[in-house]
C-alpha cells in the first residue's frame, strides 16, 4: 500500500478544524489530500515549468496555512485551495511576462481545463472511498503510469490477471463516482 493511502478519511471540515487547532498530523494529511490537485493545476492546468510549479506549489500551501483562519466555510477548503492556486499561478505567469496583462492570461489550452482537474479530483475522492486493492491498482496503472510487470511484481499478482482486475475496479469506481456527484461550491473566502 502506498504511504499516501494511510491517511484517515476525516471530512474536509474536520481536517481544517484540526489544522487550525495546531495538529501537525492534520496538516500533513491536508497536504497529502490536496497535493495532487495543486500539482495538477500548476503543472498541467497552467503548464508551469518544474521550477515555477514547485515555487507555486509551496506558495499555495504557505498561503493556505497562513490564512486558514480566514476560511468562512471549512467544508469549502477544496474550492478555496483551487482559487488560491489559480491566483498564485497567474501571479507567477504575470511576473515572468510583465508585458501581458494578467486578465488576458488563460490556462494552457493544450492541457486539461481546470474543470477537468476538478472532475479528476472528484474521481480521486471516489477512489479513496473504494479502498484497496482497487485504489492501489488503479492509482498505479493510471496515475503513476506503472507497467503491468511492475504492478504484478509490487502487488504479487499474475500479470495475466491485471487487465481484468483493472476493468472490474474501474466499473466499481464508476458506480461509486456516479453515486456521489458533487454540487456547485463557493470559494469559501471571507
Amino acid at each position, binding site marked *: 500500500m502506498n504511504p499516501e493511502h494511510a491517511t484517515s478519511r476525516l471530512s474536509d471540515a474536520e481536517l481544517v478544524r484540526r489544522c487550525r487547532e495546531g495538529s501537525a498530523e492534520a496538516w500533513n494529511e491536508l497536504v497529502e489530500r490536496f*497535493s*495532487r490537485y495543486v500539482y495538477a493545476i500548476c503543472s498541467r492546468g497552467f503548464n508551469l515549468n518544474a521550477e515555477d510549479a514547485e515555487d507555486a*506549489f*509551496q506558495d499555495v500551501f*504557505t498561503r493556505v496555512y497562513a490564512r486558514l483562519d480566514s476560511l468562512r466555510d471549512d467544508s469549502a477548503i477544496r474550492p478555496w485551495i483551487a482559487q488560491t492556486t489559480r491566483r498564485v499561478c497567474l501571479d507567477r505567469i504575470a511576473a515572468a511576462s510583465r508585458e501581458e496583462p494578467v486578465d488576458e492570461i488563460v490556462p494552457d489550452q493544450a492541457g486539461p481545463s481546470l474543470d477537468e482537474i476538478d472532475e479528476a479530483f472528484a474521481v480521486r475522492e471516489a477512489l479513496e472511498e473504494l479502498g484497496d486493492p482497487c485504489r492501489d491498482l488503479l492509482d498505479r496503472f493510471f496515475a503513476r503510469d506503472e507497467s503491468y510487470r511492475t504492478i504484478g511484481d509490487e502487488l504479487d499478482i499474475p500479470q495475466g490477471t491485471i487487465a481484468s482486475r483493472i476493468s472490474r475496479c474501474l466499473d466499481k469506481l*464508476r458506480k461509486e463516482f456516479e453515486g456521489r456527484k458533487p454540487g456547485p461550491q463557493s470559494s469559501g473566502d471571507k
Partner: protein
Amino acid sequence: MIEPDPYAEEDIGRLLGLLPPAPEGWVRAAQEIPAFRSMLDDLVTRAEADEVFQATLIADLEAAIAQAGYEPEPRAIEAVRRQMRARSDTES
C-alpha cells in the same frame, strides 16, 4: 427517456491520469511549513524587541536565522522568506 452514460470506463481512467502524485520532496517541504512558521514567529518576536536584530532580519535573513540559533540551511531560509511574503500579503 434514458440518459446517456456520462462516464465510460476510459473516461474515468483518463481522469485518474490527470492527478499523478506530486514529487515527494515537494510534499515533505509543504508539510514542514508549520515548523518554519514557528521559526518566523520567533524571529519577528525578537525583531520587535531588538532594533539591531530587526535591521539584520531585513538586510540579511540568513544571518538573522543563524543569530537566532537556527541552522541557516537553504530550505529554511527559502521557507521563512516565503512565509514573510505570505504574511506581508495577508497584512496588506
